[in-house]
C-alpha cells in the first residue's frame, strides 16, 4: 500500500534538511576558519528573530527592509562576539573557547528574557500551504530550502572565486604561515565572524516565518545543528550539508512512525552510532 503521509514525511524531511543545512553552514564556516564552536549560534538566530519581530510586527517596517537589516544586525553581533569573547581566548585551551560561548548562550537568553519577556511571539506573517495532489507542503519550508541551496552555492563561489574567499580558505588551512604571506589573520577572522553571523541572520529571517519566538527557542534546534556539523565533519561545508539531510530524514520519518521526540531520539542515536564508525564525521577527512 502506498502511504501518502509517509511520502509527505519524507518530503518534509528534505525541506527541513534545507533549513538545518543553512544553520550548519554558518557554524561550519566559523569552525573551519577560526577553529571555534559557537555554542551560542542558535541564540544569535533567536536575537535575529526578535529583531524581525520588533521591526516588523511592532514598528511596522516592511519585510523587504527588515530582513536585510536583521542579517546586518546579526552579522554585527558575530563581529562583537569574536572581538570581545573569542579573541581573548584564542590562545587558551580549545575547550575554553567552546565553553566561553556557552556563557554567551546564557547571557543572550537572559537578555532576551529580560528585554522581550517569556511569552511566545509571532510576526503574524503566514505563508500558504502548497497543495500538490493530496500532498500538503509548507511554503515557508520550501522557501527556506531554496534559500539554503542558493546560499550554499553562493558561499562556495565566494570562497573559491574571490580574493577574500581564497584568503579565508588559506587561513583555514594554515594559520601560522599566512601572516608571512601578508594576510592579517585577525581581519580574516572578523570577516568570517561577520559572514557566519550573516548566515545566522538569514536563518533567523526564514525561521521566523515558521516558528513562534521565545527566549529558549535556541535550545530547541541548537543541539541538533551542532550534531549535524559533527556528523558531517566539523568545518566541512559540504559534509555538513549532506549530514543535515540525513539527520532531517531521521527526525521526520522517525517522528512519523512514532512521535516527534522519538524522531529526535532516533536521530541522536544514529549520530552516536555514526561517531563510532567514523569519529571524524561521515564526510570528515582523516586527520
Amino acid at each position, binding site marked *: 500500500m502506498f502511504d501518502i503521509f509517509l511520502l509527505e514525511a519524507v518530503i518534509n524531511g528534505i525541506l527541513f534538511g534545507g533549513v538545518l543545512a543553512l544553520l550548519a553552514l554558518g557554524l561550519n564556516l566559523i569552525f573551519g576558519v577560526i577553529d571555534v*564552536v559557537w*555554542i551560542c549560534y542558535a541564540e544569535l538566530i533567536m536575537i535575529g528573530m526578535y529583531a524581525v519581530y520588533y521591526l516588523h510586527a511592532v514598528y511596522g517596517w516592511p519585510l523587504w527592509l527588515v530582513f536585510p537589516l536583521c542579517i546586518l544586525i546579526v552579522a554585527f553581533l558575530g563581529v562583537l562576539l569574536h572581538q570581545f*569573547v573569542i579573541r*581573548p*581566548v584564542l590562545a*587558551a*585551551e*580549545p*575547550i*575554553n573557547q*567552546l*565553553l*566561553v560561548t*556557552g*556563557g*554567551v*548562550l*546564557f*547571557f*543572550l*537568553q*537572559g*537578555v*532576551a*528574557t*529580560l*528585554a522581550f*519577556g*517569556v511569552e511566545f511571539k509571532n510576526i503574524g506573517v503566514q505563508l500558504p500551504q502548497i497543495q500538490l495532489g493530496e500532498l500538503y507542503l509548507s511554503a515557508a519550508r520550501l522557501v527556506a530550502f531554496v534559500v539554503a541551496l542558493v546560499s550554499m552555492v553562493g558561499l562556495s563561489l565566494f570562497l573559491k572565486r574571490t580574493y577574500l574567499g581564497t584568503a579565508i580558505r588559506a587561513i583555514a588551512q594554515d594559520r601560522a604561515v599566512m601572516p608571512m604571506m601578508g594576510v592579517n589573520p585577525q581581519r580574516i577572522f572578523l570577516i568570517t565572524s561577520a559572514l557566519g553571523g550573516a548566515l545566522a541572520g538569514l536563518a533567523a529571517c526564514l525561521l521566523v516565518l515558521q516558528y513562534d519566538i521565545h*527566549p529558549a527557542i535556541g*535550545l530547541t534546534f*541548537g*543541539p541538533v545543528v*551542532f*550534531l549535524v556539523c*559533527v556528523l558531517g565533519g*566539523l568545518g566541512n561545508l559540504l559534509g555538513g550539508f549532506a549530514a543535515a539531510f540525513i539527520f532531517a530524514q531521521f527526525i521526520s520519518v522517525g517522528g512519523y512512525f*512514532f*512521535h516527534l*521526540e*522519538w524522531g*529526535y*531520539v532516533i536521530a*541522536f*542515536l544514529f*549520530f*552516536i552510532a555514526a*561517531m*563510532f564508525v567514523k*569519529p571524524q564525521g561521515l564526510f570528515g577527512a582523516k586527520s
Partner: protein
Amino acid sequence: MRWLPWIGVAALALIPFLGLGNYPLHLIILCLLWGFIYTGWAVMGRLGLTSLGHGAFLGIGAYVVVMCWNHFGLSPWIGTPIALVVAALVACIIGYPCFRLKIVGHYFALVTMALSEIARMVIVALRDQTGGSLGATPQTALADTSWSIAALQFSSKTVWFYIVLAFWLAGLWVWTRVDRSMARIALEAISQEEDAAASIGISVTRLKLTITIISALMTCVGGVLYAQYQLYINPETVSGIGVSLQMVFGAIAGGMYVRIGPTVGAVFTLLLAEVLRLALGHDIHGLDTMLYGLLLVLFIIFMPKGILGAAAQAWQRRHRAARTATVSN
C-alpha cells in the same frame, strides 16, 4: 594546617543547631548537593575529559528511582542500585567507543552533549509514564508520618542536611582518593599527550573509562538525592544541555583543580541567583541568567582556573614576592 578541614567539617555539622530557619538551611543543602554533583563532574572534567553529557546521568538517577517508586512500588533502596547500573552501562556504552577511537576535545564534548539531549528527549517522549515536560513527583509516603526510610522521604530539613553533608564529604573523599592515585598522574599524562602516554604503557582506554564511570555514578547519586529532596523533577532541570552546561560552569567558576573548588562554584552560583532574586524581586526574569552568563564569560577569559585557582595563584605570588623581598634585604 592538617586539622583545618576537620574543624571546617565540625563547624558545618553544627549548622542545623544555629536555628537559621528553613530557608537558609534549604540554601545550604542545595549548595552541598550541587557541590557534590559538580565535584562528581570535575573528577573527570579536570583531567581534560570535558563532558557535556552529565545531564543524562543526573536524569537517570532522578527518573529511574522516581519511576520505580511510582509505577512498581520499588523503594529507592532498590531503585538506586538499578539507576547506578543503568548509569554505569550508559557511561560504558558512550565512553568505551569514544576512548577507543580517541574522540577528544570538541568532538567528545559534542558527542556527550548528544547523550544528554537523548536523555531529555526520552523523558519527554515517555510522557505517559514520566509526565513529560510537566515533570514528576514521587508519590508521597509522608501522609501521616514525618519521615519514611523505606521511601527515602523526610520532611525535616535537618535530616536532609546530614544526608547531603555525608554524601558531599564522601564525594570529597573520592576526589582525594583519585587525586592521590597513580591513575591521576597517568590520566594527566593522557590529557597532555595521549599517544606518548600510551607508548609508555599506560592503558588509556581503561583508565579513562574507570574515571568516567566513577564520575557518572557520583552524578547519578546526585540525581537520586535531588529528586528525593526536592520531591519534584522535570526533564529540563535534571537532564539536557542546560543542566550539563551548568555543571561545567559551576566547576570552572569555583576552580576545578582544587578539591573544594566545585563546591565553591556551587555556592557562588546559587548565592548569585538568590541575591539577585532578593534584590530585584521575582518579577524581573532573565537578569540572573544574563549576569550568570556574563560572569561565566569573564571567568573563562580572565580566571580560567576559577575563584580558588586565582586565589591560590595570588597567594603564591605574594608569598614569593615576600620571600624575594626578605632575600634582597
